[in-house]
C-alpha cells in the first residue's frame, strides 16, 4: 500500500503549514508594526549599505561545490539500490559497482589535484 505510506507525508506537510500559518496569524494580532526607513535598512553594523547584496558575483568556488554536489549526490542514487541487493548479487555485483566507484574516485582525485577542493586561493 504505497498510498498509506505516503499519505502521512501529505498530512504532515499540510499540518506543519497550517500550524506555521496559525502561529503567524496569532503573532500578527499581537505584535506591533512600526517600520521606518532606518529600521528597514539591511544590517551592516550601523554602516549605510552600499550596492546590491544579491548582485550575482560570488566566488567560483561555490559553483564548483554545487557542481560537485550534483555529481556526487547522483552517484549516491546508484549506490542505494545496489547496497540493498548486494548480498544477492554477490561478488560479481560488487565488482561491477567497484568499477563505478573507481571511476568516481578518479574523478574525485582529479578534482582534488586540480585544487577544486581548496578554499584558500
Amino acid at each position, binding site marked *: 500500500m504505497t498510498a498509506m505510506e505516503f499519505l502521512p507525508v501529505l498530512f504532515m506537510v499540510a499540518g506543519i503549514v497550517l500550524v506555521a500559518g496559525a502561529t503567524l496569524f496569532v503573532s500578527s494580532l499581537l505584535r506591533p508594526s512600526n517600520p521606518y526607513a532606518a529600521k528597514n535598512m539591511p544590517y551592516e553594523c550601523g554602516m549605510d549599505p552600499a550596492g546590491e547584496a544579491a548582485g*550575482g558575483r560570488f566566488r*567560483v568556488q561555490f*559553483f564548483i561545490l*554545487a*557542481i560537485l554536489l*550534483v*555529481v556526487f*549526490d*547522483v*552517484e549516491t*542514487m*546508484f549506490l542505494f*539500490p545496489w547496497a540493498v541487493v548486494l548480498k544477492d548479487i554477490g561478488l560479481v555485483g560488487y565488482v561491477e559497482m567497484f568499477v563505478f566507484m573507481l571511476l568516481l574516485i578518479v574523478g574525485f582525485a582529479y578534482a582534488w589535484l586540480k585544487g577544486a577542493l581548496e578554499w584558500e586561493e
Partner: protein
Amino acid sequence: MVPLWWYISLGVVLFVIGAAGVLLRRNILVVLMSLELLLNSVNINFIAFGRHYDDFRGQIFAIFVIAITAAEVAVALGILVALVRNKPTLKVDDVTMMKG
C-alpha cells in the same frame, strides 16, 4: 490504482511546458530549468510504463536519465560561469554573437 493514462498525461503536460519554456524563455537559467521539466516528463513516462509492465527497466532508465541530466546541467553551469565571466548576462539574446 491510478490509471496509466493519468501519468502519461502528466508527462505530456510537463513535456509541453518544458519545451515551451526552452523555446520561449529568454533567461538561460530558466531555460535550464525548463530542460529539467522536459527530462522529468520522460522519467514519469518511464516509471509509469515500468509499473504498467511490472518491469524494472523503466526505473533503471529513469535513474540513468537523472544521473546523466545532472552531469549535463553541471556542464551547462560550468560553461555558463565561463560565459558570464566574459560577459555578465543571462539573457539568451545578449549571448548571441554569431549569426548567419
